[in-house]
């Protein structure tokens, strides 16, 4: 690339602040996570005993960790599949030439501003076993009195629904933006060829939307694995039993409540592997999409 401003030192000065923050607070600590995952650390952090891969072996033999893993995959899978399907449907509708469509759009995207902790607090109110409106509606419809404070699978379902609800706004924003990038001429052409609206969506819009869908798949996966601590902490604290003890919550408890630093670091590294897989997928996909664009 040609230089617009011949200056040998300035670019380094400009990059330095970002680079310093990245190195000091992100890259070096991440490397330390790798290092610590190979040790057993005494509760006060003053004695390190080398354990090799023991922490990892222990981790995958620990029923509590395997439980946490399975429940996190259900949680994230639900957010991705159900959340993205609903959001796409809503975005397609809000992309139609309807009267008042701007109002619809705004009314769909605002949950983006809510925090996981806010979502958790509100859903705890909705499903309160003795006063919640959802408890009430379910009782009216089925005669059952739901108590998620004693029913672990129900608790998992409820935190999952709450987390999915919170992400709808974000997903709709990006799907709407993606839909507006779909060339109108292509849809017109498909229409001329006699394709019905369902065929037009499935054969034209959906394939062209795949970069957006994939981007949202990545963002929702990261959200499901990493950003839901607040929701769990205000709603269930991992309970009842260990039913909502998702990976990030277990990591926090092992690292900051039980002070098992090495063990917690090993869990960090497993999470890193998930991110690495997602990143590789993203790069491969980003390379491919150039093909049909």
């Amino acid at each position, binding site marked *: 690339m040609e230089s*617009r*401003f011949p200056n040998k030192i*300035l670019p380094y000065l400009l*990059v330095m602040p970002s680079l310093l923050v990245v190195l000091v607070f992100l890259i070096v600590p991440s490397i330390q996570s790798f290092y610590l995952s190979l040790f057993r650390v005494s509760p006060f952090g003053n004695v390190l005993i080398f354990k090799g891969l023991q922490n990892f072996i222990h981790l995958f033999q620990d029923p509590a960790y395997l439980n946490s893993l399975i429940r996190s995959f259900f949680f994230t899978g639900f957010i991705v599949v159900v959340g993205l399907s609903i959001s796409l449907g*809503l975005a397609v509708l809000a992309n139609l030439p309807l009267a008042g469509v701007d109002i619809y759009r705004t009314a769909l995207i605002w949950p983006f501003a809510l925090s996981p*902790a806010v979502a958790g607090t509100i859903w705890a109110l909705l499903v309160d076993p003795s*006063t919640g409106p959802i408890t009430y509606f379910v009782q009216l419809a089925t005669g059952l009195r739901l108590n998620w404070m004693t029913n672990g699978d129900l608790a998992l379902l409820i935190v999952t629904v709450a987390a999915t609800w919170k992400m709808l706004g974000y997903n709709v924003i*990006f799907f709407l933006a993606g839909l507006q990038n779909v060339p109108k001429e292509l849809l017109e052409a498909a229409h001329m060829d006699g394709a019905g609206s369902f065929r037009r969506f499935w054969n034209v819009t959906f394939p062209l939307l795949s970069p957006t869908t994939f981007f949202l798949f990545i963002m929702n996966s990261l959200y499901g694995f990493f950003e839901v601590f607040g929701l769990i902490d205000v709603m269930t604290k991992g309970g009842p039993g260990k039913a909502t003890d998702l990976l990030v919550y277990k990591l926090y408890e092992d690292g900051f409540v039980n002070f098992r630093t090495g063990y917690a670091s090993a869990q960090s590294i497993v999470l890193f592997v998930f991110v690495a897989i997602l990143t590789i997928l993203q790069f491969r996909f980003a390379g491919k999409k150039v093909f049909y664009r």
Partner: protein
Amino acid sequence: MQITRTQSVLAHVTLIVSILVIAFPVFFALITSTHSFQESFSFPPKFHVGSHLLENYRTAWERVNLGRLLFNSTLISVAVSAGKILLSLLAAFAFTYFGDFRGKTTFFILILITHMLPLPIRIVPTFELVEDFGWMNTYYALTIPFFASATGTLLFRQFFLTVPNDLADAARMDGAGPMKFLWKILVPLSKTNMLALFMIEFIYMWNQYLWPLIVTHTDDMRVVQIGLKMLLAGEEQAAEWNVIMAGTILAMLPPLIILLILQGSFVKGFAMRQEK
């Protein structure tokens, strides 16, 4: 593309119903925040607007010192958004206007790699580092570790690449140095992108929970998200939902207002470019 009248009616109905369902949780939270304790504790639940709005908000405000918590959240969200915008603006400028200086690709990758390192991956060492710096329970711990932004750097870089090179050449002819060009020409042109970035980063920072939880421990340094936990604490038997919801509404209001004001810039300056 034309749609038939039936399709249009169907779309309207589906959208309205969906919007009502999505809004119901917040609607009910709002209603609850106006109830008396008795009303909020009744079954079947009450769906009318109560008369205890001010009282509940005052109680919540005083119980967990919400004024201070909201102040802290505002301070760190504005500081981090501003910090991220400034740092990523400078980095993106370096990456687009100074040719292939030595180490450029490495630096770029290092900044992008932050996307791969969410807090849980490095939480123990980052915590220990901040402790070693003597930053525990300070605003430094709540802001500085967040200052770098891969998203911002990418966004500004992409935008700068679309700015015609003639502008930089003309500026140089007129004797303007690079920094003057950045402030006088590029910054005003980047306004939409900056607002979009401000919106995302403000909401992102306002909604942080885990990091503020572990690096602060006195009530005067807590943020409003932790305030929700404080309001809920010890409420296992009969939650005072009316008071808790008053606090919850206050905790969600600032980012919601920012979203409503800036959503246009966000869609134009960010979402439309994201997957290109």
